[in-house]
């Protein structure tokens, strides 16, 4: 059996000690169970957060709810005590966690805080009947935790909560055509929030404030902006500025893909642009040609992906 590492040893690329170290791992004499334990920890955090959420939902107002809430409050306080007591000072650059489970306990503290805030609103109506303010406060708390304890996952939660405050949500009938005033509000809000997130992400990067968070802002911005523009086009018809917005946002996504050498933005941009352009072609064949020359449509679908595919194949080296 030819092992590549032995060839490297014979060719002088690695030393005998390096070869021995690699062999130790290959033969299983050294075995890391880090990813397995992290998975276990993540599952535990999810179960605990889900369980507490259901406890509050099911037992609010019942006799035993104070005990349950008391337990959750103790867990929450314990988590915060732990993460504050072990945390390093705030730094605008990336900081390392003091131990492998610190990040998970930070996530747990954030999720339990959200549960407690929900309870306060349910029981004491802390924000009156303005439920949306609860999501804004939650978003602010998540953002603080994310920046203070350098946690990318909690930043994602903060952005999701902010979108929720603005009334954005993804529903199964997202692409179901129905023109409503509410729909217009959601599409505009989605596009504006996407642009805002992209601007914030790039500005923070330029100021070198937690610049490793920028990909999170940009991922949310790309997905939110493109989805909003595309569903608006689907909802309001191709003859609207949303189809132009979808093409412009796709172009921005592809440009950013080349800039940061990330193939994901390429995937988003090219896919959405192709769907919008194809919708225009189908519209043209159906409305203008009255569906008589359907073979044109098949020819379009045969030939049309070839150009972007060739571009992708030619540009592959720029993504290495």
């Amino acid at each position, binding site marked *: 059996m030819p092992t590549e590492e032995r060839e490297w040893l014979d060719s002088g690329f690695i030393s005998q000690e390096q070869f021995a170290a690699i062999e130790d*791992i290959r033969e299983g004499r050294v075995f890391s*169970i880090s990813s397995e334990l992290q998975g276990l920890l993540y599952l535990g955090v999810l*179960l605990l957060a889900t369980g507490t959420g259901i406890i509050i939902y099911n037992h609010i107002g019942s006799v035993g709810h104070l005990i349950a809430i008391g337990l959750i409050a103790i867990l929450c306080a314990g988590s915060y005590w732990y993460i504050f007591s072990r945390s390093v000072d705030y730094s605008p650059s990336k900081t390392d966690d003091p131990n492998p489970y610190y990040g998970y306990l930070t996530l747990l503290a954030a999720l339990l805080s959200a549960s407690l805030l929900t309870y306060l609103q349910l029981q004491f109506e802390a924000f009156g009947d303005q439920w949306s303010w609860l999501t804004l406060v939650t978003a602010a708390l998540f953002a603080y935790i994310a920046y203070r304890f350098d946690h990318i996952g909690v930043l994602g939660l903060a952005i999701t909560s902010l979108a929720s405050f603005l009334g954005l949500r993804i529903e199964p009938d997202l692409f179901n055509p129905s023109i409503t005033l509410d729909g217009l509000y959601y599409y505009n809000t989605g596009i504006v929030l996407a642009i805002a997130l992209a601007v914030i992400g790039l500005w923070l990067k330029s100021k070198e404030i937690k610049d490793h968070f920028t990909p999170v802002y940009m991922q949310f911005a790309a997905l939110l902006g493109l989805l909003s523009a595309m569903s608006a086009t689907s909802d309001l018809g191709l003859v609207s500025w949303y189809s132009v917005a979808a093409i412009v946002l796709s172009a921005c996504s592809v440009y950013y893909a080349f800039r940061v050498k990330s193939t994901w933005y390429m995937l988003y941009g090219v*896919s959405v642009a192709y769907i919008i352009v194809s919708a225009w072609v189908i519209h043209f064949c159906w409305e203008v040609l009255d569906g008589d020359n359907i073979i044109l449509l098949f020819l379009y679908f045969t030939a049309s992906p070839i150009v972007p595919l060739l571009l*992708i194949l030619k540009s592959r080296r720029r993504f290495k």
Partner: protein
Amino acid sequence: MISAYTIEQISALRHQLKARKWLKAGLVNQDKHDLIVEAYPSNLYRVKLAMAALLFLGGTVVVIGLQLTIAMSFLNELEDLLGFPTLIMGLLVLVFAEWLLIREQCHHRTGMLQAVYLHGLQLLIASSAYFFDDNEIIVVLTAFILSLLASLRYMDRFALASALVCFGVFVFQLFDSFDGMMVYFVPIFLAICYGAAAFWLDRLSKSGEHWMYGDLINAGKLFSLILMYISVNVLVVSSGGNLLMNLDGQLPFAWLFIALTILLPLTMFYFGWKNRDRILLNIGGIGAVLSVPSIKLYFEMPTNEFVIAFVGVLLIVTAILLIRYFSAARNGISSAKEQGQSSSILKILEAAQAFQQGEKPTTDTFGGGEFGGGGAEGKF
């Protein structure tokens, strides 16, 4: 050789991938990595996951568009002989994949290659349906054989997974075609077959005889173990029985499936731990977790939020205790990261060395040396 790629091509690719792996683990530095990549140049064209997804989508649109265009143009003339043009079209698509994508452009798991050859296979399978009067057993058998051959030819894990699933469907249809109780033995028979496949692939992997197919063999073992667990999972068997055989929840030998749903993953986990086999360990662990909702749903037990929260606390505490316990490597097992930016594999190795020193004399390889970061320079 059945593979579409030469030994030299695959060998060079393995060198590059391994150099990258050890670079990530911090055992080879960037300069040495670059030297290795330069010494073993690979002309195989590979892309990242997102790019592969894009190429797959694009490739699929092109081949389907082409097929529809041709079909719309000639359908009237060929209506009575639909099987032959489908067969010829399928073969032509495969020839296109072989000549243009592999021989000329050296595509290797690029997404586009998968889109094209999968489409060719679908056409061949469709033509078999025409030639054998929609005989389901023969169609599925054809799909199994073609997928298996494609997985070996293109070294593609997706085709291998497809072949293993097709085998399961084939066995079910074959047993179903017999009268009597035979169909009830399908889950156990499949579990034995997939288990035997996993065992055989494990032996094959350890022998190193077919090193060229190393990745495919490991993937085959993984898929076989997953399918083995699915075959005996009480919820899957019960739902499948209700759907395909109208069992109405009356699952024969239910106790056996309940026992296997719990015991099989635990057995896998045990042997994974004992033999330090990551595939077995992970499938066993995930299976053990999944067995809880499986049993719960089978018996239609209500969700108890206090139990969920309690199990969550239990898992967190257990994981933290294990992380702390294995932070100093014990018997070579460690909770330190092996890959990634904060890889601490060097610490594990030092600990393993320290442990082994009690058993056999070793040279003072890592003690106080300058392995970290500059380990590849040989200054230990």
